[in-house]
């Protein structure tokens, strides 16, 4: 049983070579002038987390190669900066997940590039200024480049930047276990005629972008650095949004993401899992992401009127359907069970007829994101008094959820293992027992209409099941019968004649006979109990 991991040790292997070719009048060894490092010497530069070595395996007129090798101290890295945990023990998970990643391979390399080859990066060459103005035939090789997004993204990022050849070969995880597939590393070789400074500036930006390490420390002036290093090539790059987002997204993550999840990280590791596996619920739903491009669930009103009706995302259609059903039911106090990042809560908040909105989710992180998106802390009192976000679990009964007009379970049930579904049914229909319950879930029959979805795949990595229309209707009818609700199922989105709508919505209403019976019950209670409970208390007098 292993917990924790040698994340830091990945750092032991940071290596890059820059080669060029030359002629007698343009000797390849000019590379030494450009890099400001003498080809006849091995030089070492001490950095805060290890030593950077620059040396030349070959240095002739015809061919010159500079190698940059980082000797990282993994033990020192993990131990540095670790706070004392409770009980005097260092907080291992903190060390592993916050403090090691700042030094992840690509950022170390980027830092080394910018410090060891500072003038080259800036396009300056004090001894031979003219050299810096001239493109060189370059070959850059990085044998283990962490690339989230794989070889394909590597091509997309380096392809438009003037290289004659971009070669990115995935590194297999372990050739003894071919079933494990490829690692996140690629063996990268870039060849082409470029200014050395341009090549280095590309690497400086794109290596961390490809790494995309989540807990990466980025200094506050990182925007400026990006602008400087990206000058002249980034703005026109077709992937400039990806690059910018990934580069700058790392800023937020350290404080806002990592700390809130350490407890979860430890539980994931206790099971030999990666946090990503636990976190996938927060990924965007596939159909939310692609609804705009795919077979269009179009709005009813838009048909024909607009020459090119803009497709409405399914998530929006779903929210509209839910809002409509809630209004029709006259609900004022509403539970959004499994509220996720709070999109529906936000929509409910915009309609003042919803006087109390409670968003419930089991993921603390989802609630944090929701609160941030809604700017809950800065919201005026009148508005914020209508909304609450609380952690809860639908596999437990919860007294706080009793007494509401309506509960919404939008794209929630399919995130629960089927054997746990009865617990949810009881908690919602049996214990919380709102007058109206809305349940939406994907219609698996419709999946064939998503072009991007491979056959047999569910729409979201965390979906434990997806139902056909028949399966959903059967479930809804059974639950309704068991708990005294009436139910009807409605389509959401384009109701395909063959496979039905992308989303199905069940509207449960507490059976009216029961409400009628309530009144009758009050009169009947006295008789059936044998007497009324109004006898005067006599505890103190009894002998």
């Amino acid at each position, binding site marked *: *049983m292993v917990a924790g991991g040698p994340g830091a040790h990945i750092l032991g292997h940071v290596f890059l070579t820059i080669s060029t070719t030359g002629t007698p009048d343009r000797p390849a060894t000019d590379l030494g002038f450009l890099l400001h490092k003498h080809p006849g010497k091995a030089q070492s530069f001490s950095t805060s987390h290890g030593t950077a070595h620059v040396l030349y*395996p070959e240095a002739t007129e015809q061919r010159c190669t500079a190698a940059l090798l980082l000797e990282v101290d993994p033990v020192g890295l993990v131990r540095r900066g670790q706070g004392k945990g409770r009980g005097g*023990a260092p907080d291992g998970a903190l060390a592993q997940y916050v403090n090691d990643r700042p030094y992840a391979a690509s950022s170390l390399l980027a830092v080394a590039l910018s410090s060891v080859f500072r003038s080259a990066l800036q396009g300056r060459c004090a001894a031979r200024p003219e050299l810096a103005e001239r493109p060189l035939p370059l070959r850059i090789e990085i044998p*283990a480049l962490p690339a989230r997004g794989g070889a394909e993204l590597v091509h997309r990022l380096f392809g438009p930047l003037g290289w004659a050849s971009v070669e990115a070969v995935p590194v297999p995880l372990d050739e003894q276990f071919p079933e494990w597939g490829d690692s996140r590393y690629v063996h990268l070789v870039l060849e082409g005629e470029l200014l050395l400074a341009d090549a280095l500036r590309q690497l400086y930006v794109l290596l961390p972008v490809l790494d995309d390490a989540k807990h990466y420390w980025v200094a506050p002036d990182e925007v400026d650095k990006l602008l400087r290093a990206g000058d002249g090539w980034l703005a026109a790059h077709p992937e400039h949004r990806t690059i910018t987002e990934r580069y700058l997204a790392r800023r937020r993550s350290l404080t806002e993401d990592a700390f809130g999840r350490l407890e979860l990280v430890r*539980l994931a*590791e206790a099971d030999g899992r990666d946090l990503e596996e*636990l976190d996938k619920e927060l990924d965007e739903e596939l159909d939310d992401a692609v609804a705009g491009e795919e077979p269009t669930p179009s709005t009813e009103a838009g048909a024909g009127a607009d020459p090119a009706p803009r497709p409405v995302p399914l998530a929006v259609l779903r929210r509209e359907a839910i809002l409509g059903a809630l209004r029709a039911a006259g609900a004022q106090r509403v539970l959004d069970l499994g509220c996720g990042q709070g999109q529906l809560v936000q929509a409910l908040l915009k309609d003042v007829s919803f006087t109390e909105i409670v968003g419930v989710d089991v993921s603390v992180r989802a609630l944090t994101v929701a609160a941030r998106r809604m700017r809950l802390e800065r919201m005026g009192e009148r508005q914020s008094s209508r909304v609450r976000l609380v952690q809860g679990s639908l596999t437990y009964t919860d007294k706080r959820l009793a007494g509401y007009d309506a509960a919404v379970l939008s794209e929630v049930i399919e995130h629960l293992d089927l054997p746990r579904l009865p617990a949810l049914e009881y908690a919602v229909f049996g214990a919380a027992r709102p007058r109206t319950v809305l349940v939406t879930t994907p219609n698996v029959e419709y999946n064939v209409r998503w072009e991007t979805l491979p056959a047999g795949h569910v729409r979201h990595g965390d979906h434990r099941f997806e139902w056909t229309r028949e399966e959903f209707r059967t479930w809804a009818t059974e639950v309704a019968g068991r708990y005294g609700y009436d139910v009807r199922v409605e389509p959401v989105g384009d109701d395909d004649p063959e496979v039905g709508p992308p989303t199905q919505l069940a509207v449960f209403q507490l059976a009216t006979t029961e409400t009628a019976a309530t009144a009758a019950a009050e009169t009947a209670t006295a008789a059936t109990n044998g007497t009324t409970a109004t006898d005067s208390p006599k505890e103190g007098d009894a002998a």
Partner: protein
Amino acid sequence: MNDDRKNDDRKQRVLPVTDLSLVVLVGATGSGKSTFARKHFKPTEVISSDYCRGLVADDENDQSASKDAFDVLHYIAGKRLAAGRLTVVDATNVQSEARRQLIRLAREHDVLPIAIVLDMPEEVCAARNAQRPDRQDMPRHVIQRHRRELRRSLRGLEREGFRKVHVLRGVEEAETAEVVLEKRFNDLRHLTGPFDIVGDVHGCSSELEALLAKLGYRDGVHPEGRTAVFVGDLVDRGPDSPGVLRRVMGMVKTGNALCVPGNHENKLGRYLNGRNVQHTHGLAETVEQLGREDEEFVAEVRAFIDGLVSHYVLDGGKLVVCHAGLPERYHGRTSGRVRSHALYGDTTGETDEFGLPVRYPWAEDYRGKAVVVYGHTPVPDTSWINNTICLDTGAVFGGKMTALRWPERELVDVPAEQVWYEPVKPLAGQAPGGHEGRPLDLADVHGRRVVETRHLGAVSVREENAAAALEVMSRFAVDPRLMPYLPPTMAPTATSKEGTRGGAADLPYLEHPAEAFAQYRADGVERVVCEEKHMGSRAVVLLCKDADAARERFGVDGPTGSVYTRTGRPFFDDPAVTEEVLRRLRTAVTDAGLWEEFATDWLLLDGELLPWSLKATGLLRQQYAAVGAASRSVFPGALDALRAAEDRGIDTGGLLERQRERAADAAAFTDAYRRYCWSTDGLDGVRFAPFQLLAVEGRSLAAVPHDTQLAWLDRLVEADERAGTGLLRRTGRIVVDTADADSVRAGTDWWLELTAAGGEGMVVKPLHAYGTDRGGRLLQPGVKVRGREYLRIIYGPEYTRPENLERLRVRHLGHKRSLALREYALGLEALDRLAAGEPLWRVHEAVFAVLALESEPVDPRL
């Protein structure tokens, strides 16, 4: 005569005050309330309005702060009453509105309001105020107004709701009066039984006699001095209510029984007191039967019923008996609604298809420590729900009559002789709250919690850890009914200090058996067992004999058990695979004869599932294999480059040599993790190595010595080998005498051999499994001693380099050890609760806490 009268008047007034009540002092300013309160009550029991005024306004006499001051006073009083503490309110309380609020407060907390009035002459009040500098300026008319209001109030105090009113007139009476605390009538905590609690009788005299005889009573007396406790509904519907009353009244009179009233007694009492009640639900039969009795008996019945107390708290507070059930906040309380709940239970206000009121399943919400035994709702069979049990098994409807022996918790019943009364509707399947598998409530686990354990006292869980556990438990775990245990984390042995160890080559170690043996020896453990540590994933297996056993014992429909990870996830995504593992295990258990040996239908096993690569794919691929992949990709090129540079005559300062060593370390790292990985196909290649049998029906086996344990498990493995499934794997072991140098050497050699062959290492456990050290502290149930090569996976490829090892030896084990002990105690607690048949939420509480603690910050490499 006159003198006598005088003496009588002067005689000390005794003021009875119920030990849990809200005492309201009433009197004009200066009447001496504070002095009286100081004299008769503890300072903390008294809340004065003056003091509260001071709290909110810095001035005890600032009348403008009165509203806020009384808010504070009511708040504090409410907190005290909720906690069950006598509370005295020291304020003038001469206005009915002020008293009304206090009476409402008392009722909200179901305690008796008691008034003590100090009726002092105006002169006395004025004189006393004059002596107080802060009240010197108080106008005389204030006192006069207070006294006027007081006099107007005096006659109506009882009507206002005060259950006792003591009026003290004049200085002398006030000064000599004595307050005497009285116990509540329902407080019989001093009675410890043993008890036989009898369910609803409903006039079934013959069955009652049979049941009492079966319980061992002879003519209403138990030879061993046991006490019968009747949960009420003695009368109505059945053939002989007078006979039942005669028996029970006789036993109560002679001290052989206690009785609480049922709703049927209550109605009969109203009838006997001349009230107009409907003769429905079997009252007609009782009235007719009583008509044949003499008046004296009927009068006795009336007095008996009038004297019944709604519920009893017994046996040091561990047992509560009442007719229709009682939530914890009502235990030992005294109010109309407590009595009403005790008699009728809670109803939702709805009626069912038979026109009967729908009873609210109060037991489902019950989380109290005291066991509540009740009747009222006829069920075919009794069942424990959240520490409550309903004993009404419908004798009068042709069911049976049931008694519960306490503290034995044994059920004793006799069948009904016939259907005496046709039920309006069929008996409910289970007691209220028993349907849908007794759902767990968020309040069982959410937020900051303290779990009481038998072996380590209170263990607390922080809110953030509970939050993380809730997420994992809700999204990924198996059904909690099938997860009665989670394994605790284990601390490694103390860090090895010396450079050379073990007689083998000149190798430095981070972990070595020497420290483990020495530690246990220091703790007074003579014999330890070293068990081979299998490198796979921890797996707990709940195995039931068949689907029926799973349904009956764990309330699940379908699965015959579960196989889950240390965080409660199902081990296999496909339930069919789980069932196949269970089937193979079941065959082995049957063949080994363990079902019969333990007289059980289920058992709980702790073990390791192999290979590691089966489950730990995330970390393995993301981290371990990735390290190997990167190194294999980098080193060839890097070494070539360095060699080429050196060939050019460049001095690399030993860099090449260092990189060679690093490459070798990286290869050793890859070898280390590869040993624990192999490909599997379905269950082919999957192995399970059980190392502890945790529990069977009625019994936790966690404290059974490990040699006994391993002998059981060997039988399982042998049985599996005979069956040829290839699933089970034996755990290698050697017993070491910690005081014997030869034995210690043998243990060390065994470990060296094991780890040299690629083994992960071993776990050293006290042979007697459970115990305390010389200081009386709970012993670590085991410490792990991991192999030198294996630790590369944990500490990185290059950890064995001297400069790295030196730094790594600074490891802080204290928190890990404490965590291991706390989780161990929680695990034991879960097993004890499971064995005792405690309700699901009690078992789950401890299991959940283990998971929560697993998310505490601790060095993950330990």
